[in-house]
C-alpha cells in the first residue's frame, strides 16, 4: 500500500521535472535562434536595404516558419561562382543557426548540376531538394511538367511558408523565369550579363584617337554597331600593334572544339547580330536560337521550316565570329576554351572584347593587375554590346545568366518546403545587398538603387550604371522557345567548331546545326514526352517563302557593313541617366 502511494508521486515528480526542463530547453532554443539572428544581422548582414529592426523581424519570421522542420537536413546544389560560394559558406550556416534546419549547399560545376537535374527528371527519384538552375531551362521546365512552379507553391502548399517581405516585384529577372502560361517557375538568386568590354584608358589617349579618326573618319569610342567594332579591332591588331612596347590586340575570343564553344553562340550571339524577331525578353515567334514557335509549339529551326538558325543573320554572325577570331585575336585564342580565354583581357594586351561576361568583374579589378590603376579603380569599362546590321529596335541585345531556385515534383513535399525556406533566405532583403556586394550578381532593384552600390560603383567599371539603366531589359536569357535546353544546347559546339576550324563554311555548319535541332525536336514530337507546348514541326518548303515574309527569318542584306558609329562613354552614361 505504502509503495503504491509513492509510485504516482515519483511519477508526478519526474513528469514535473521533465516538463520543466523541456520548457527550459524550449526557452533556451528560442533564445538560441534569436541570438543567432541578432549576431548574424549585426556582424554579417549589416549592409542592407532594410533597417536592423526590419531585418530582425524577417529573421524571426524564418525562425518561426522553420519550427516544423527543425532538425531536418536538406541538400541543395548549384554551380560555382562567387555568389553561390557565399551562399554555401555563409548563408547556409546563417540559415542553420537561425532556423535549426541543416543545409548542405553543394557546389559542383554547371555541367554536373544539369546532369544531376536530368537524372532526377528522368528517374523521378530525389537527388537534391533544391537546384539552382539557369533560367535558360525555363522552356524545358514548363514543357516537361516536372518542376513545381514557385507561383503555385506561393499560393498552394507554401502559402504560410512564403516570406511576407519577399517582394517578388522587386526581382529584376522575374520575366525570365515566367513561362507562357503566366506562372513563375523559378526564383532568381543571381544574375550576370554579357556586355562589351574595353580599355577606357587607351580609348582616351589623344594619339590613338587622332590616329583612328584619320584612318576611319570617325571618333574612337564605344562602338554602337559591329562595323565600328570591326574597325576598332582592326585598328588595334593591325595598325597600332604595340602600346608601350607590348603587343596589343583589338579583339579576344576562343575557338577550341569544346562544349564551352556552344555558350559563345547560344548565349544570344545571333540576337546581337539581329537574328530572331522583335520582342522582350525573347523574340517571338522566332527567338535568338532561330527556333520558331506557333502558339508556344516549336515548329522548326531551319529556314525551310520557318526558323532562323541557318538564316542570313546567323550566318553573318558566325562569319564575323570566325573572321575576327582569325584576324584580330591573339593567335593562341583559336585553341582556347571559355575558361582559358576568360582571364586573358586582365593581362593587359586586349583593347576590347565584344562578348564578355560581367561575372569576370571581380577577377578583373584585383589590385596589381595590369588593367587596374594604382588607386584600385579599373582601367577598363563595360558598355552595351554593339549591334549587328540586322538588329532592329525592340529586339534583345545580349545575354543575361539568371541562376534560379528550381524545385522538382519528385522531391518529397517536406524537403521541398524546407528548401523553399532556404531559397527565400538567400534572396531575402536582409541578406541580398550583402550578397550582391560580394558576388556582384544583382537580383533586386532595391539593391541596385542602394547607396552601398553607388559607393561601390567606381571600382566596378560600369556594372552598377548598367543595372540601373532601363536598357538592361534588352539583356535576357534563353527563352521559352527552346523545348529541351540540355538536348539542344549540346549540338551547338559540335557544329560551330566545324566553322571555327575552317572545316566547313558558316553556312554549311549552320545548315547542319539547324537540321540536327529539327531532328531532335522531331523526336520529341514523336515520343510525345512533353506535357504541353511540345514541338510540332512544319513541313519543309522553299526557303524563299519564309524569307519573303516580314520578320525573322530575315533575308540577306545587300550591305552588311554600314558606316561605323561610335559614342563617347560619358555620353552613353548620360543617355542612360536621362531615360531613367
Amino acid at each position, binding site marked *: 500500500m505504502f509503495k503504491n502511494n509513492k509510485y504516482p508521486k515519483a511519477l508526478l515528480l519526474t513528469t514535473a521535472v521533465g516538463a520543466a526542463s523541456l520548457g527550459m530547453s524550449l526557452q533556451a532554443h528560442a533564445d538560441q535562434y534569436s541570438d543567432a539572428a541578432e549576431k548574424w544581422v549585426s556582424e554579417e548582414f549589416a549592409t542592407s536595404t532594410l533597417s536592423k529592426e526590419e531585418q530582425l523581424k524577417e529573421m524571426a519570421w524564418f525562425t518561426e516558419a522553420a519550427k516544423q522542420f527543425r532538425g531536418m537536413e536538406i541538400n541543395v546544389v548549384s554551380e*560555382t561562382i562567387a555568389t553561390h560560394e557565399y551562399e554555401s559558406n555563409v548563408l547556409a550556416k546563417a540559415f542553420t543557426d537561425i532556423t535549426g534546419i541543416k543545409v548542405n549547399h553543394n557546389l*559542383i*560545376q554547371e555541367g554536373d548540376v544539369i546532369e544531376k537535374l536530368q537524372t532526377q527528371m528522368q528517374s523521378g527519384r530525389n*537527388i537534391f531538394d533544391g537546384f539552382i538552375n539557369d533560367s535558360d531551362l525555363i522552356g524545358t521546365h514548363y514543357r516537361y511538367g516536372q518542376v513545381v512552379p514557385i507561383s503555385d507553391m506561393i499560393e498552394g502548399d507554401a502559402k504560410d511558408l512564403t516570406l511576407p517581405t519577399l517582394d517578388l516585384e522587386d526581382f529584376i529577372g522575374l520575366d525570365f523565369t515566367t513561362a507562357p502560361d503566366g506562372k513563375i517557375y523559378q526564383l532568381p538568386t543571381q544574375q*550576370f550579363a554579357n556586355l562589351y568590354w574595353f580599355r577606357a584608358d587607351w580609348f582616351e589617349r589623344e594619339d590613338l584617337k587622332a590616329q583612328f579618326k584619320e584612318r576611319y573618319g570617325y571618333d574612337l569610342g564605344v562602338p554602337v554597331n559591329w562595323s565600328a567594332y570591326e574597325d576598332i579591332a582592326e585598328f588595334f591588331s593591325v595598325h597600332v600593334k604595340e602600346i608601350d612596347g607590348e603587343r596589343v590586340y583589338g579583339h579576344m575570343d576562343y575557338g577550341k572544339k569544346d562544349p564551352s564553344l556552344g555558350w559563345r553562340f547560344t548565349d544570344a550571339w545571333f540576337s546581337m547580330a539581329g537574328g530572331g524577331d522583335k520582342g522582350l525578353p525573347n523574340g517571338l515567334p522566332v527567338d535568338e536560337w532561330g527556333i520558331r514557335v506557333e502558339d508556344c509549339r516549336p515548329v522548326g529551326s531551319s529556314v525551310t521550316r520557318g526558323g532562323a538558325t541557318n538564316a542570313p543573320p546567323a550566318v553573318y554572325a558566325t562569319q564575323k565570329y570566325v573572321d575576327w577570331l582569325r584576324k584580330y585575336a591573339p593567335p593562341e585564342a583559336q585553341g582556347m576554351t571559355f575558361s582559358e580565354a576568360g582571364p586573358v583581357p586582365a593581362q593587359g594586351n586586349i583593347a576590347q572584347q565584344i562578348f564578355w561576361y560581367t561575372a569576370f568583374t571581380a577577377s578583373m579589378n584585383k589590385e596589381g593587375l595590369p588593367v587596374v590603376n594604382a588607386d584600385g579603380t579599373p582601367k577598363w569599362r563595360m558598355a552595351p554590346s554593339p549591334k549587328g546590321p540586322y538588329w532592329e529596335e525592340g529586339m534583345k541585345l545580349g545575354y543575361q545568366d539568371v541562376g534560379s531556385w528550381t524545385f522538382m515534383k519528385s522531391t518529397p513535399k517536406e524537403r521541398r518546403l524546407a528548401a523553399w525556406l532556404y531559397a527565400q533566405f538567400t534572396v531575402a532583403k536582409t541578406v541580398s545587398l550583402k550578397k550582391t556586394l560580394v558576388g556582384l550578381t544583382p537580383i533586386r532593384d532595391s539593391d541596385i538603387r542602394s547607396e552601398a552600390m553607388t559607393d561601390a560603383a567606381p571600382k566596378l567599371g560600369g556594372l552598377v550604371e548598367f543595372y540601373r539603366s532601363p536598357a538592361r531589359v534588352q539583356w535576357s536569357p534563353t527563352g521559352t522557345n527552346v523545348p529541351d535546353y540540355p538536348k539542344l544546347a549540346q549540338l551547338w559546339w559540335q557544329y560551330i567548331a566545324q566553322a571555327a576550324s575552317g572545316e566547313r563554311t558558316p553556312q554549311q555548319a549552320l545548315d547542319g546545326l539547324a537540321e540536327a535541332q529539327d531532328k531532335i525536336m522531331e523526336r520529341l514530337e514523336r515520343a510525345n514526352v512533353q506535357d504541353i507546348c511540345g514541338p510540332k514541326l512544319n513541313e519543309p518548303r522553299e526557303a524563299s517563302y519564309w524569307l519573303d515574309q516580314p520578320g525573322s527569318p530575315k533575308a540577306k542584306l545587300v550591305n552588311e557593313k554600314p558606316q561605323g558609329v561610335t559614342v563617347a562613354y560619358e555620353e552613353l552614361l548620360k543617355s542612360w541617366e536621362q531615360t531613367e
Partner: protein
Amino acid sequence: MNMNKRKGFGITAYIILLMLPIYWLLNMSFKTNQEILGQLTFFPQNFTLANYATIFTDPSWYSGYINSMIYVSINVVITLLVALPAAYAFSRYKFVGDKHLFFWLLSNRMAPPAVFLLPFFQLYSSIGLFDTHIAVALAHCLFNVPLAVWILEGFISGVPKEYDEMAYIDGYSFPKFFVKIFIPMIRSGIGVAAFFAFMFSWVELLLARTLTSVDAQPIGAIMTRTMGASGIDWGVLAAAGVLTILPGLLVVWFVRNHIATGFALGRV
C-alpha cells in the same frame, strides 16, 4: 662505362619526361592564380600554401577525400573477401563450365561503366542505398572482383596442390589451412590484387559521381567546383590534384616489388 653513361642518360631523360606533368602540377599548387595566368614561371615566385589551406580548412572539400577513402577501403575489403575463395575454387576444382565462367568474369570488365549508370542509379535509389559509401563500393566490385579473381587465380595456381594435401594429412582443417598456411603463401598476390582494386576504385569517377550527392561525394566530383562561370581556380585544382596522387603513391610503395607479377596475372 660509356654504355652505362648512355643508359643513365636515357633513363634520366625518360624520368624527367614522366615527372614533368607532375612537377608542373606541384608547381602550380604553390602559386597564386594571378601568377599561373600571368606569366610562365618554373618556380613559384610568390610561394603560397593558400591553395592547400582552402582544401584543409573547408569540410566540404576535405570530406571528399574521406568519402573516397572510405568507399575505396570498403571496396578493397569486399573484393578480397569475395575473390579469394573464388580464385581458390577456379584454381583447385574442376566443375561444369568452369572455363566459361572464368572467362565470363572477365567479360564484366569489357562493358564501359557508363552502361551500368542508370540501372545502378535506379536500383540503388529504390533500395535506399543512394548516396552511401557502400553503394559505390559495391558498384566498383563489378569491375574489381573479376580482375582480382584473375590475378589471384594466377598466384594460387603457382602454389603446388601438394601443400593443400600435406596440410590435410597434418590434420589441419580447411579453414585453418586456408588462413594460416595458404594466405601467407600468396600474400604478395593479395597485395597486388588489393592494389589494382584500389587503383580502379580511386580514379573511377563516373559511377562514384552518379551514385552519390552529398554524404558520399567523391573528391573527383568536388574538384569540378573549381570550374565556374568566371574561370577556373587553377591553384586549388592543382593542390587537389596533388593530394589525390598521394594515397596512390603510398599504396604503390607497399606493393612496389610485386606489381610486375601482378600485371602478368600471377603467371611468373
